[in-house]
């Protein structure tokens, strides 16, 4: 038995949407103060839809895979849907994470929510 599911390893080895969006209009950076993982999400939102998303992550396999999966789950989605994203959904989409690694997937949810807040602050729009 491997530590992680095939899906986790796939997203860890070939992370989707890695990088920076220079003209992002919603940026969120969150960290787990204790374990030290840090995640940064860049959103490009137009017409209440996430047109583009990129991430940068400093963290373990589960943190990187969660970021990657989360970006896939919100790309091209309306904000009404994006704001519903939970870490549980991310973990499920990855075919599960070891119990002691669930906190890493929480970061993905938090980073997206923090980027949405940033977007609202910048634009004055309510989601």
């Amino acid at each position, binding site marked *: 038995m491997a530590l992680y599911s095939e899906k986790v390893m796939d997203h860890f080895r070939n992370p989707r949407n*890695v990088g920076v969006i220079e003209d992002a209009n919603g940026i969120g950076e969150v960290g787990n103060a204790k374990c030290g993982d840090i995640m940064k999400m860049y959103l490009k939102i137009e017409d209440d839809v996430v047109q583009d998303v990129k991430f*940068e992550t*400093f963290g373990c396999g589960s943190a990187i895979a969660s970021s990657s999966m989360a970006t896939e789950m919100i790309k091209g989605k309306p904000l009404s849907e994006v704001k519903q994203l939970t870490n549980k959904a991310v973990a499920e989409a990855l075919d599960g994470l070891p119990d002691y690694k669930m906190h890493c997937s929480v970061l993905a949810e938090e980073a997206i929510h923090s980027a949405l807040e940033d977007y609202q602050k910048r634009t004055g729009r309510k989601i």
Partner: protein
Amino acid sequence: MPPGGFTASGKESYAVIYADNAATTRMSEAAMDTMVAMMKESWGNPSSLYAHGQEAKEVLEKARKDIAEAIGASPREIIFTSGGSEADNQAIRSAAALGRKQGKMHIVSTAFEHHAVLHTLDALREEGFEVTLVDVHENGLVVPEEVGEAIREDTCLVTVMYANNEIGTVQPIREISAVCRKRNVIFHTDAVQAVGHIPVNVEEDGVDMLSASAHKFHGPKGVGFLYARKGIRLKNLIEGGAQERGKRAGTENVPGIAAMAVALKEACANMEGNAAHLTKIRDRLIAGLREIPHAALNGDETRRLPGNVNFCFEGIEGESLLLLLDDRGICASSGSACTSGSLDPSHVLLAIGRVHDVAHGSLRLSIGEDITGEDAENIIRNVKEVVSYLRGFSPIWRDLTAGKKAFIL
């Protein structure tokens, strides 16, 4: 399929560089042969009086003699245990029991001991003992004078590991034992990472108790021993039959013990050559990995085990590093919080003053005798590539290189 793996027989099915010998070692052929031979032939109970039992008893006592010889002890001073953890527990509990009788309830140790020691000390704290942990400094070395300063009238034990399992630093054991002798305090050393790798001699080193574990020197797992100088009264952790002169109940693991003795003899016979080879490769690895910017070696550069290399790389996390190295056929370990299963990075790295962020990006390579110069170049190249890849999408690295945060390393 990642380019690395082991077949059921333990042989590599394709090229793997196993650089995690501090976690465990592969059993030597001689140790395996001995173990199987004992299971096939001398499988009797050493406590039985008929010949078949007495034959097993002979095997057991021969192993005890060989092990005693390897560390300069006498056979009566060796008791077999289930490994390093049990030996540590028993040594510390024994000294504490003696201390309690004499009203001495203070123990001196260090913050970077193995958990087998630290958690035993935690338990003793709950039982009323006081524990002083001496500094291990930035270079990962205990200063003997500071041990002396920590010793009090009511100190019943000093326990300091021989060599650290994470950063490989080798402690000034003789100087520490001299301090303890002078103050008449029992000195125990967890020598799990040292025995079979560097010269250990209980007489010359002046230690009163010493723990060792077979699987760290190419013997089997679940077997180890405790050396306790004649005159030190051991306290039982496991009550039952009269095995091990009444100090450790349970029918002896004869095949494992015999294999441990063979492995130790072998390791000691080849120690000089192995150490010279390992030291050369270790130093090449250190020089090569130093070329990575914002990286630092953990632990003193020369006073370390011949096979230990431990680095921190700023801006990356250790588990991802390990997973990607595994994909490239390199087995290593890390002290990052995410690899530990707990939320904290290695207590050893914190003890030498590495901050959380930096401790997160640690890599331990503990190489074995079969490593080649080519393997070392392979490791260096792959670590460089993986570190640089991970830094490429690390928000911390971005802030550091953008000048938004100051580099620590």
